[in-house]
């Protein structure tokens, strides 16, 4: 048995990097220090895995050779006029880079899953900027931590023990050195251990943020409650914010996906900016997929835009609403799709999925996703962080490199190699044509 230390967890945006994994005969037999969610995923990563390249045939799928599957995927892209290359949040930056080159080559649209979650936050930053910092800032300095519209106890399980409430930092050494506040539409495990919990009416984040901005500026309220929260509680939170030495606001999909979307984030940014006139305050989105941050970063440095990048004019263009995946699919504008390490069929609006089912689709993914079931060709891939190593960006932009510790099943190449292959084949097809 081999014990591999300092293993990175490639599941959520916390990217914990202190795991210990035991391996015996190329099987993962134990995982230490990971959260329950990650432990399950590591231990089952090698099972329930269909390692075969598949192609659609007479209403079903048939097993094909890898080469044939790659050819098919390349043909789908090369023959398309305006393909969508989607996903990228659960893979390595190395794969994302090839994905961008491939999208540029075929004049398509590159979009990542941020388009349906924290993308609105990125748009807000484009408009106003953002006061932010790394997770260690919260750990060492913050005496006020706010979780807004996110539930780390379920989605980012080690967030509080590695980065906030229960860590030993340089200037804050224990739980009682920090105040924890939760703002959410319902009670959660996180809210139960909070010092203050504000239960907010669904979809009323913007109102509450605006009220907090008023309270922070010492303005009076004429109502008794805003967004379902009594004014006293709003004033209490405002007082905590103003009087803390270092505050950090973590926000999740509860904020980005409730009705006002980017106005919400802009309001949150404005609040945090105002607070910096009085104290020190930072904010950070709780990114879900382990490398969605990397998908945005690589797209930014290669194209200038974080997602929804259109190459149909030969240069990068960005206009969410027009160039974003869900909109392109709903309007039926794209005529083919390559889906990498993502499952739009289970998280996109129904109208988008319906149209996705009507165009040629190639899927590259370690597991057999719902999207693979409507694909024309499905190419299995190795797991980043288990079966191959690649660069990933933690939710706060800290880049780390995962490692390989078991061999992938036969036929399962790292997706970066799959994509390089497809790119190569697309180029030869275009040369012939």
């Amino acid at each position: 048995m081999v014990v591999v230390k300092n293993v990175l967890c490639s599941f959520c945006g916390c990217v914990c990097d202190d795991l210990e994994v035991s391996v015996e005969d190329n099987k993962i037999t134990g995982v230490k220090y990971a959260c329950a969610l990650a432990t399950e995923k590591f231990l089952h990563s090698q099972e329930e895995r269909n390692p075969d390249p598949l192609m659609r045939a007479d209403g079903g799928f048939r097993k094909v050779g890898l080469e044939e599957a790659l050819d098919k995927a390349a043909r789908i892209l090369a023959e398309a006029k305006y393909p969508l290359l989607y996903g990228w949040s659960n893979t390595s930056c190395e794969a994302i880079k090839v994905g961008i080159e491939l999208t540029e080559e075929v004049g398509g649209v590159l979009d990542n899953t941020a388009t349906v979650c924290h993308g609105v936050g990125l748009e807000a930053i484009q408009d106003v900027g953002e006061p932010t910092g790394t997770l260690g800032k919260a750990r060492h300095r913050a005496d006020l931590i706010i979780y807004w519209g996110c539930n780390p106890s379920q989605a980012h399980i080690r967030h509080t023990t590695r980065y906030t409430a229960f860590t030993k930092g340089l200037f804050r050494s224990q739980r009682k050195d920090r105040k924890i506040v939760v703002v959410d539409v319902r009670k959660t495990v996180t809210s139960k251990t909070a010092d203050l919990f504000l239960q907010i009416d669904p979809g009323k984040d913007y109102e509450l943020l605006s009220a907090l901005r008023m309270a922070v500026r010492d303005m009076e309220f004429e109502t008794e409650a805003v967004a379902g929260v009594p004014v006293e509680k709003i004033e209490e939170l405002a007082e905590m914010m103003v009087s803390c030495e270092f505050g950090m606001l973590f926000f999740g999909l509860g904020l980005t996906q409730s009705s006002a979307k980017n106005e919400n984030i802009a309001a949150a940014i404005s609040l945090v900016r105002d607070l910096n006139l009085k104290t020190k305050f930072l904010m950070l989105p709780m990114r879900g997929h382990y490398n969605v941050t990397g998908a945005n970063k690589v797209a930014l440095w290669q194209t200038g835009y974080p997602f929804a990048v259109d190459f149909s004019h030969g240069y990068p263009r960005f206009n969410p609403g027009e160039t974003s995946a869900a909109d392109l699919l709903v309007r039926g504008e794209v005529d083919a799709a390559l889906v990498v390490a993502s499952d739009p069929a289970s998280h996109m609006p129904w109208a988008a999925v319906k149209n996705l089912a009507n165009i040629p689709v190639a899927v590259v993914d370690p597991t057999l996703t719902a999207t693979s079931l409507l694909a024309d060709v499905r190419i299995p891939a190795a797991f980043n962080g288990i079966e191959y190593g690649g660069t990933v960006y933690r939710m706060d932009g800290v880049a780390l490199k995962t490692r390989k510790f078991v061999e992938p099943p036969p036929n399962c190449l790292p997706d970066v190699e799959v994509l390089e292959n497809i790119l190569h084949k697309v180029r030869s097809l275009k040369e012939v044509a």
Partner: protein
Amino acid sequence: MELLIKNGIVFDPLNGIDGQKMDIAIRDGKVVESVSSGARVIDASNLMVMPGGVDLHSHIAGSKVNAGRLMRPEDHFRDPEAKTPTTRSGVGSTVPSVFTTGYRYAKMGYTTVFEPATPMLKARHTHDELDDIPILDKACFPLFGNDVILLEYLKAGRIEEAAGYVAWMLEAVKGYAIKIVNPGGLEAWNWGGNVLGLDEEVPNFGITPREIVRSLCKISKMLNLPHPIHLHPNNLGRPGNYETTIETMDCVRDLAGEKPVIHLTHVQFEGYGGRDWLSMSSEGVEIANYVNRHGHVSIDLGQLVFGNATTMTADGPFQFQLYQLTGNKWTNSDVEVETSAGVVPYFYKRSNYVNAIQWTVGLELALAVRDPWRVFLTTDHPNAGPFTAYPKVIAWLMSRKARERVLSKIPRMARKRSNLSSLDREYSFSEIAVVTRAGTARSLGLKNKGHLGVGADADVAVYPLNPREVDPSKDYKKVRKAFGNAVWVVKEGQVVVEKGEIKTAPRGKTFWVKPDIEEDVLRLAAANLKAKFREYYTVEFDNFIIPEDALARPQVLKAG
């Protein structure tokens, strides 16, 4: 591969060549004595030939540059670059995407560019981007001036251990030199504060910026680093700051050696007189006078160029102040243990007297510092203007007429508060070669760059200008045009620009420095750090280290 650049008019100040007609022979990426008759010939008759440009301070890669990209979609929209058979697509303007950065520098005849501010924890990101910048050779400077672990060593008076720590860090993150930004001020910024003078104590640490600068200067010498401490001092961007700037240079005077021991960067931002914005004046000449009298200092300009810019520095409190002043978008990005950073877009207006005074400061510095080997051309891209404005700056340096055209249009108050109109000096081509390549290469300790002697890296720029015919003083527009678009550029012996267009875009090297330190001292530093690493960082010691093979094309330089 052999190449012969024939009959060019060559400026190679490191080898004493000042406009002589000669051939440059190239084999296997190096300049050689001669080549065979089969060599490819580039006819450079009546064209100006210089070594490839070397930029020692330009924000081209890493976390804050990318934060700038995120904030400037309106900037990108204006300046798209389409894919061509030899180039990738991208966006330009003030915060260009990586491919465009490489192409545009190459087209100006630049072949080496250093990224000057990298948080160690985010160095992997910087290297990721540097790897993606085509053609250029690169490196990055890690930020030490507010590093908590270092401050603790200094507070305890343990400079030997501090040196071991710096050496370990440089090697671990594949950095090149010691960068200091607003020493102590960024630590204070963790609590929303700042440090406003060389002798003001850093909160919680009981040491002063003076001690930080002096200690790091000593450490840089102990480790025999090729480039001196690279410093952005306290009080940047504030009226009256020139005194702090001179004090900062002076605080290491007794540490002087054969080479400069301190490099002050983008000094334009540090050369202001007056008590407030209303009484602000240019004190570029004052600083230049100090530099002229003291050989232990070198500076670069951070020359302001009117128009669109994106300010980005590790100086969080400065960026916050600029945000309050302008009301523009503001990003702040703090990094645990190490540093802060900030980004604020800015538009420099010729009609704004503060901006106009800022414009004069950089030129005063350039013209009043007599030794071109200790003053370098930068715009602190993209802070005071984008690097693509270098040809404009070159024209201002070479032509009094070019400067006067601008001087006549800036507010009278700005003219009165500056000495620029009294400075007659006009740079020669040779001096331009010094401040854009030979001097910078020497300052960086890059022995094979910045010149065209036998054994040099075959990085060569051929500009469409006959320096024997063109009088730069009068024909400054021709000069500007020529430096903006080289006819041929050779990088490591490969023709990368031909007839002004990108011909091919090979991958450049990334330099990093292995400090001069006993192996057992280094091992001890590593062991000490490993033992306490988890107290400071949220990543594991082993995952923090960037192995050499994580870089696409690393090139180690052994210090000493």
